[in-house]
């Protein structure tokens, strides 16, 4: 049922003039995608640096809490641009993307990464700043940082794989994969 609704919504989006305009414009679509990829350097670049600090692998002499707080704004600007360009990319190809198993996995991983980031931030605030000059963060924060890196590797990989149509609905797919990808019988 949910797959039918999602498809109907995607088809409605596809029929709008804005969606057609973006997809059909060689320069507009490709520059939106380029911006989406370039902001990886801003958002994930900062995130990796913060995570590496928590794991004791970068800037061991700089306060971990200070580093996280100072790089946070730049990281959030990067994520904002990434989110907007990501929405536009989805809007340009809504049906293809809705029925992409990779996009679906990426979406799940993004939700988990968001929850992990909120929990990490809460734990960091709750822990006080007694450890901030230690080379490594407390164990639970280290785990959060490592999990964040793994999740983002997954997000980037599945994001890249959306471009490949190996498991799109017009292919021969096993039943479970067909349902997971959101295929709807005509």
């Amino acid at each position: 049922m949910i797959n039918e609704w999602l498809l109907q919504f995607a088809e409605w989006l596809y029929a709008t003039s804005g969606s057609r305009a973006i997809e059909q414009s060689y320069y507009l679509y490709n520059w939106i995608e380029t911006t989406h990829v370039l902001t990886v350097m801003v958002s994930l670049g900062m995130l990796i640096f913060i995570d590496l600090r928590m794991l004791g692998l970068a800037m061991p002499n700089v306060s971990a809490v200070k580093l996280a707080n100072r790089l946070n704004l730049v990281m959030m600007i990067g994520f904002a641009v990434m989110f907007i360009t990501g929405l536009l990319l989805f809007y340009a190809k809504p049906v293809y993307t809705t029925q992409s198993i990779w996009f679906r996995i990426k979406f799940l991983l993004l939700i988990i990464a968001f929850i992990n980031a909120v929990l990490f931030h809460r734990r960091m605030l709750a822990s006080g700043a007694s450890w901030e000059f230690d080379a490594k963060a407390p164990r639970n924060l280290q785990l959060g940082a490592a999990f964040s890196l793994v999740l983002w590797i997954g997000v980037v990989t599945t994001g890249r794989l959306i471009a490949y149509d190996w498991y799109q609905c017009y292919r021969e797919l096993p039943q479970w994969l067909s349902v997971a990808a959101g295929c709807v019988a005509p």
Partner: protein
Amino acid sequence: MELLPLSFFEWAETTYLGYIGKTYGGVYATLGQSIHLMSLALLGGTVLVADLRLLGVVLRDVPSEVVTEQAHKWFRIALIAIVASGVFMAAAIAQKLFYNAAYWAKMYALIAGVLFVFAVKRPLLKGDHSQINPWVLRIVAIASILVWFTVAATGRWIGFS
């Protein structure tokens, strides 16, 4: 202008690396493209942390010598990973790349970036930054951000050309 002859690109596709990338799409996409993108994130992060510090935008209360040194350590790791995954991907589609203008633009940008880092930025920033004219530091930071964003953007356009 091409930096290497077509015969080199023809040979690259016949190598084991070229064979793997061409035959196994999943390996190409994950070990090639995904690692390339994650390395780009790391490389971009190290460039931005160092350059935004030089511009006085972030971490103003941490000495820029410390930030530059630590960022450069991870920059080198990112550069090795990005070049290694790049070579792997290039081997699989070498002949196509020879005729791709964006690919050559990227190679020139990459060479400019590497020369800039190791021949200009590093030697300049090795000592005490307070001895350097602040405008020189700012110009170096802006040039560095521009050159690496150009490398990334031309790299992405290889796929569109």
